[in-house]
């Protein structure tokens, strides 16, 4: 039963991708419906897995001696992320039917979206690290292809290439980890490694742990790789919602959470993780404060919130990080899809040209405000509970100065969120735009997300059970009931955090009286717009990679004879080596 569900949730989107591509762009309607059908079917399969979680292999494909078995384990952590990927994937596909209507080459778009959904499910369910690396790279490829979907726009192509190169650097970290794992344990099985990592010596363990931290930071756009995510915003909005908010960028956090039991004793690893999370959260929040591009603000806030999750893992609470991931996936997908509806309707991403959009699109305004309140951490939305749990965990498991910075970031979050909402939906129109009507498919995708942002925190009990001992024996996650969450969250530190958030909001409301303070921020703004210098570093990496590729291109003559000569030369070298060696 469970093996069929696993096969369905990975395989159905891939079959769908193939079908959409084969149907061809002449039948746009059929393509829309095929993608909806297959993504919903995968979503149903993933949701059914919730009742069938197990810590043992759910599906094993024998692959002989070299790569080990391809094993998929539907444990709580994996199934939860698979559900997020498929359900939010389905909603993004439904949203796309209206957002992408009339675009050319819609088949390419849907094929990559579906291919991505399947790969993401595979990434979180597999327990073979080689296979995980494969899925990891597939998601990076899909992300690249979808960022650069409008491939006649050089900005989009540049953003895509940048995302691909930076995430591939992370992939190298993962591959290195996989090889070290194999050298010392003789298998690629993650589960065995986490259960017993005594075979790996301490020094190698440190290399492994920090290698995975780099991989995770690159994938999740954390410090110092945080600059690819804003540039990825050239992608169509449903893609930003799905890949760059709800799923792929979470893969890094997932990696850290998955390996936390093995790495937690590595010297300074937890501190490094917490500092990476803190710097990402802080820098991205400041950048979000000064940006005027609606989607870039949301991208920065994604980096910032991912910083919270990474921080929680470092502080030792995998549960808090995953619970925040759960809330964040919902409200950030909601915000991105809402922003997509606004952009689709107004025709620009520049917030300085918006203003007063709320009058034309009341439905979008209200769901966006729900998402924004959840992002700011206002009670009683899901973002409030999960963020407070993260902060509690940080206070308990990490130094208090990092905690103080994170509370400050919570205040900044409230400030930039209210600024964003205000600039888009309230005030007077600052340019001559014509808002279109919001279509039904958009509403169908937005409504469940808004509802979930309001109530998803009620599921904390079942959620903690899902991540509990039954399927994740090494993670030591205790079951947390709703009542005990109330007890834990409603305490003095929460009050401090709420005061921080209130100050953030107050700063915005009093902005006219605080002109001097804002002037002081101007110098910060310049630095923030340049990503505090890290943009230069990241761009340099991309430039060097591209330059190397261009140089190597000269070796590709495109003439078969030269290629054959290369093969023959390899044969000669091989023979000579054998003869000389023997």
């Amino acid at each position, binding site marked *: 039963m469970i093996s069929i569900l696993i096969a369905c949730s990975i395989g159905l989107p891939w079959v769908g991708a193939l079908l959409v591509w084969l149907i061809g762009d002449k039948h746009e309607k059929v393509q829309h419906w095929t993608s909806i059908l297959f993504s919903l079917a995968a979503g149903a399969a993933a949701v059914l897995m919730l009742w069938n979680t197990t810590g043992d292999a759910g599906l094993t494909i024998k692959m002989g001696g070299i790569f080990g078995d391809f094993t998929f384990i539907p444990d709580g952590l994996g199934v939860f992320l698979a559900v997020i990927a498929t359900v939010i994937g389905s909603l993004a596909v439904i949203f796309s039917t209206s957002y992408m209507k009339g675009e050319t080459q819609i088949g390419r778009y849907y094929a990559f979206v579906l291919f991505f959904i399947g790969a993401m499910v595979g990434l979180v369910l597999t327990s073979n690290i080689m296979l995980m690396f494969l899925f990891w790279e597939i998601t990076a490829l899909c992300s690249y292809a979808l960022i650069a979907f409008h491939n006649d726009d050089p900005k989009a192509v540049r953003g895509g290439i940048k995302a691909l190169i930076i995430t591939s650097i992370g992939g190298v970290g993962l591959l290195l980890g996989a090889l070290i794992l194999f050298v010392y344990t003789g298998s690629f099985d993650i589960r065995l490694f986490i259960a017993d990592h005594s075979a790996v010596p301490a020094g190698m363990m440190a290399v492994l742990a920090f290698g995975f931290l780099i991989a995770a930071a690159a994938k999740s756009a954390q410090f110092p790789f945080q600059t690819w995510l804003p540039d990825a915003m050239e992608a169509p909005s449903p893609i930003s919602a799905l890949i760059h908010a709800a799923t792929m960028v979470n893969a890094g956090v997932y990696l850290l959470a998955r390996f936390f039991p093995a790495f937690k004793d590595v010297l300074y690893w937890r501190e490094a993780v917490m500092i990476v999370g803190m710097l990402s959260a802080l820098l991205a929040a400041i950048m979000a404060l000064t940006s005027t591009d609606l989607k870039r603000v949301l991208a920065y806030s994604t980096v910032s919130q991912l910083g919270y999750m990474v921080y929680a893992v470092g502080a030792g609470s995998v549960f808090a990080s995953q619970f925040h991931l759960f809330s964040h996936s919902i409200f950030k997908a909601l915000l991105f899809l809402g922003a997509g509806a606004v952009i689709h309707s107004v025709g620009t991403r520049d917030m300085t040209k918006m203003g007063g959009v709320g009058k034309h699109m009341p439905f979008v305004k209200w769901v966006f405000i729900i998402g924004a309140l959840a992002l700011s951490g206002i009670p009683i939305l899901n973002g409030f509970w999960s963020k407070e749990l993260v902060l509690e965990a940080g206070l308990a498991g990490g130094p208090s100065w990092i905690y103080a910075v994170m509370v400050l970031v919570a205040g900044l979050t409230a400030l930039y969120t209210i600024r964003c909402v205000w600039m888009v939906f309230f005030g007077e129109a600052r340019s001559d735009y014509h808002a279109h009507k919001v279509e039904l498919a958009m509403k169908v995708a937005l409504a469940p997300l808004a509802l979930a942002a309001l109530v998803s925190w009620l599921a904390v009990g079942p959620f903690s059970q899902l991540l509990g001992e039954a399927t994740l024996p090494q993670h030591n996650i205790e079951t947390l009931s709703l009542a005990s969450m109330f007890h834990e969250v409603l305490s003095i530190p929460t009050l401090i955090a709420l005061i921080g958030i209130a100050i953030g909001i107050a700063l915005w409301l009093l902005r006219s009286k605080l002109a001097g303070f804002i002037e002081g921020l101007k110098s910060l703004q310049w630095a923030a717009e340049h990503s505090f210098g890290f943009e230069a570093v990241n761009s340099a990496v991309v430039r060097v990679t591209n330059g190397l590729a261009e140089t190597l291109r000269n070796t590709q003559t495109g*003439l078969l*004879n*030269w290629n054959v*000569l290369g093969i*023959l*030369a390899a*044969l*000669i070298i091989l*023979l*000579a080596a*054998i*003869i000389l060696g*023997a």
Partner: protein
Amino acid sequence: MWYVLIAVGILVFAILAISAKRLLISAIWLAITSALTALMLFLLGAPQIAVIELSVGAGLVTVLFVFAINIAGEEVIGLRSALPLPLVWTSIVLACGLLIFFIFRSLGFVQFPDATNTIAASVLWQDRYLDFLLQTVLILAGVLGVIGLLAHSKDEHSAEEKA
């Protein structure tokens, strides 16, 4: 003695096949080379492979060649190589020389078993499910490729008709 004759024949006809000016002639020399290879396989005690090589290599593929050459048409392309000739010769001589040296040195003591193993045939198709799977996939790939190519040309025809 037979072996020597066949080996020399293979070399001669292979050279003829690659040096023939006309493609059609080249295809025919290739078919003869294939037939000689099949004969050698048969002498080596692999009659099944020999039959397959004869029917597929000398038969089917030759038909395909003739077919393709008929459609594509003969074309005399300048004999000037894209690579510098000394490079070609050096690498070929080096590779073949090394191979021959290698064989003479490492296989000098191997005894050639003359009794052929007859139970091979029954083992052949029973133990090797993987190969069957692989071949099915390969054939599928071939069929898909041909369908793709044909579908493409059909589109073109309809486009030409419209124009």
